[in-house]
């Protein structure tokens, strides 16, 4: 599912070369310079908690949660590069639903009126590389700042739009698709080590994925292509919205 494109290979190559080059100048923690960790990112996002959409009997939209809880799993590897700096690379995954935008309000497609049958399940897999500066102590201890760039592949399954009306027009079906995002961001956090091998930390970050929201069509979608484009944009916005201001915790192990 993930496109291990050039960016991934470049990232790994960069890590390898840096770690070799700085070998002598990075004592790490008692000589341990490599950390694997699990990071859980939690935050508010434009993500409904499930697929169900509550429509009223008259067909109008019922109550639903505009904000949902975003959660992303990350498997990270951090390499201490010098006394104060480290590099982190993470594989990320998040499952989510999207569609809390114009799409679930219903829209005119030609003369017919359609609405989203249910929120769309999406999945985002990605890779991220971050440079960290530990400003109060030696890496990987204490408070740090980091900047990061990443790549995310956001995919979604088949999307059904049902026709609202007396005749029996067929539903509009959008085939499964995907889009790429390139999030960048800035974060800061705090890490401590216990028993010389376990790492616990927390932090927060701000990131932006250049994922524009769907266009506002004023309730009218001109053609199928525009509809597909809107779904793609909605998927990207959904995946990235939670990563805007998340809080995260880290549980790690020093190798």
């Amino acid at each position, binding site marked *: 599912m993930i496109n291990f494109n050039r960016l991934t290979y470049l990232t790994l190559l960069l890590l390898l070369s840096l770690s070799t080059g700085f070998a002598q100048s990075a004592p790490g923690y008692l000589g341990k310079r490599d950390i694997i960790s699990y990071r859980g990112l939690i935050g508010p996002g434009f993500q409904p908690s499930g697929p169900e959409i509550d429509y009223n009997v008259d067909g109008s939209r019922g109550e639903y949660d505009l904000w949902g809880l975003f959660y992303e799993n990350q498997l990270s590897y951090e390499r201490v590069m010098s006394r104060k700096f480290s590099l982190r690379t993470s594989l990320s995954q998040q499952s989510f639903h999207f569609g809390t935008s114009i799409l679930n309000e219903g829209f005119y497609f030609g003369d017919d009126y359609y609405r989203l049958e249910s929120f769309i399940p999406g999945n985002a897999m990605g890779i991220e590389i971050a440079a960290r500066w530990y400003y109060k102590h030696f890496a990987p*201890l204490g408070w740090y700042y980091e900047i990061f760039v990443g790549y995310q592949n956001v995919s979604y399954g088949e999307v059904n739009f049902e026709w609202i009306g007396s005749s029996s027009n067929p539903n509009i079906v959008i085939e499964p698709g995907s889009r790429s995002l390139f999030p960048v961001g800035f974060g800061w956090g705090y890490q401590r080590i216990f028993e010389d091998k376990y790492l616990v930390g927390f932090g927060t970050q701000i990131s932006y994925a250049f994922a524009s929201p769907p266009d506002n069509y004023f309730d009218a979608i001109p053609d199928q292509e525009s509809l597909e484009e809107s779904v793609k944009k909605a998927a990207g916005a959904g995946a990235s919205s939670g990563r805007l201001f998340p809080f995260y915790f880290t549980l790690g192990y020093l190798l």
Partner: protein
Amino acid sequence: MLKKLSLSCCFLLTSFATFSQSELPLWEEPLKSVGEVPEDFFRNFEERVAIENDNIRKSSARFESDSQEEYVEESEFYLNRFLASGDILYGDAVSQYCNEIVDLLLKDDPELRAKIRVYTVRTPSVNAAATNSGILLVNHGLIAEAENEAQLAAVLAHEIIHYRESHSVDQYLERERRSEAASGWFSDEDEEELENFNKYSQEHELEADTKGLEDYYLPAGYSHREAEYMMDILLYSYLPFDEIPYEKEWLERGPVSYPMEYYLEDLKPITAREDFDDSETSHPNIKKRKEAILERETAGNDGAKYLISEERFKNAQKIARFESARMYMEHKALASTLYQCFLLDKTYGPSAFSSYLRAVTLHQLADYVQFNVIDKAIPHYEKVEGQSQQIYFLLRHLSYEDIRSLAVAHSYEYIKQYPNDIKGKELFDLSMRALFEESYLQDDDFVREFEAEMREEKIDSVAEASRGRSSKIANIRTRRGTSNLLKDKEAAYHYNFVPYFGDSLFAESFSKAAKEYANEKEEDSDDNVKVTRIRVTTPSKYDKPVQAHGIDRVLFLTPVYAQTRKIDSDEEEVRYAKTERMRQDYHKELFKVARVAGLEYDFLDYGSLDKRDEEKFNDLMILRSYLYERIKQPKGVNYVSTVDLVKDVMAKYDTKYLVFTGNKTARMPYSLGIFTLYYSIFFPPSIPYAFGNLFVTDYESVAFMVVIDTETGELVFYDETEYSTKDSPDYLRSVLYNQLIQIKQEKS
């Protein structure tokens, strides 16, 4: 102000005065402690505090328990540090003699005698102290200056009263009480309180003078008059142990005298007065103390100057004077070291000790001049009174070349006289190398033979003296005659080696050093390398270059540790009990991390001694002394006067690398995190950080580590790491590993 004073109140320091048998320890035999190590030196802090609290509770119900415990923690903390300073001696000839005087003074009070322990302190300052736990500390400076045993006994009697009457606890509580009462808004009130407090302290001093006299000193049979005379010793205690006019021949070498401008015509007068204004001092002025002593009537004859032995006093005094010279050197008071050596030569005759110390002092002084930090070693002569002023003035006027060449001349004279002394040969070689490498001098800068007219002038001036002219006239003519020969006032060093070029050893060493330097210079110019005498590099604060020394084994010396609480930018409180606990933890972390880093180590610490560790105790003293002397030197200086002693000690621990380390963590004052929280609203992602900041205390820490190669004196590793966190185990380990791995890891 009162609060600040309270930090130094662990001892009642009394300006008063002290000593045994055994041979005079010259350089090869420094004074050492003898016998079982007293528990005072290795008892742990908690135990010490508990014992002391019990003692106070049993002996007095006057104290508030909170203040008492606070006082005990504070005083035991500083006492602990002082006892572990390496400057305290027990069981040696001098300490033994002091103990015997106390035996005499307390012969009728065995219960009190059993509680008192007497130790001596290696310092030239004239002082003595009593702690609340019954330790009497007598400085070598006091023994060096006292005129006889009776004067020393007077001081000891005075200190016994301080202990018996718990003056130190009283003063602490009084200070606390006044400090709380004066914590108003007006500083004037503080000053008034301070003055009142000084009166309170002065009453204690007078009580110690008079009761010491009545209860112990006079009944023992010591002279009443000597107790009064001791006050004169205190009055002039800021001057060296004698006031002998400095003789220029003592330092000058070669046929040419330094110009008259190098010497003071008129010395600054001695200004000490008996009736000085004592409103701002803890002790009454000397006049009042003398009056208080003379008010006590004595029946019959005046008493004795010596009850034990004049010979033992003179011997102890001699030891104390030699030890004081050593301590001047250790504390980098170079002019004082030279004048003390001059006094030793004049009083006891020339010795290997003073001859060597003089050569080392000159060698080190040249480095201070080279690095332009002479102020650290030679205070301005106007700050000095008495005959020693002359040498301060002279050293300030000698040129760098003068001092370098004098160092060579004096070290050469030393090896000529003591040819089997290895350290002397090393010093001579080092001085000779430095003469060329550390200055721009070349071999043809030094005159090998007298010029004809100079020889005639020299002979004439000597003849002048032999013709029966007065010493004064002969000296004036000689001085004028030779100094007038100089082409300019900077040129005296050209002639310093004239008397030595005839010696093959000197001539060969000189030629060799000059040739080696010329070759080095040639190589440097071939490689187009710019030769710089002083290289100063400033490493980045955040990511200093990592060093690799490939050292396998080291000896750790007692680390220093402090945990404090900053009250504001000026005031900081030590957390005594916490500091002591963390110091113990720090030891464990240090050893653990050394093992992880693969560094073999041995460890010397007062806390880990037991009563059988006399040898280790003395090793610690020598190493601490070496360390103080070494780390006080400016950058680039690496010759330590005790180099031979230290080599022997380090050989026992199978390494030449001495490690001194420590950590200080200060808890910062509470910062207004609420503002951070307020401003974070404008930048929402910072809210968690700002919120956390409300509850997280800020800390500032600094950890240092010094590694010295004791064979060469070279500072092979120095690291000072600042970190803004607490001294929790993971943080400490991280810092220690960062330091130790640099010592251990091989150069790539």
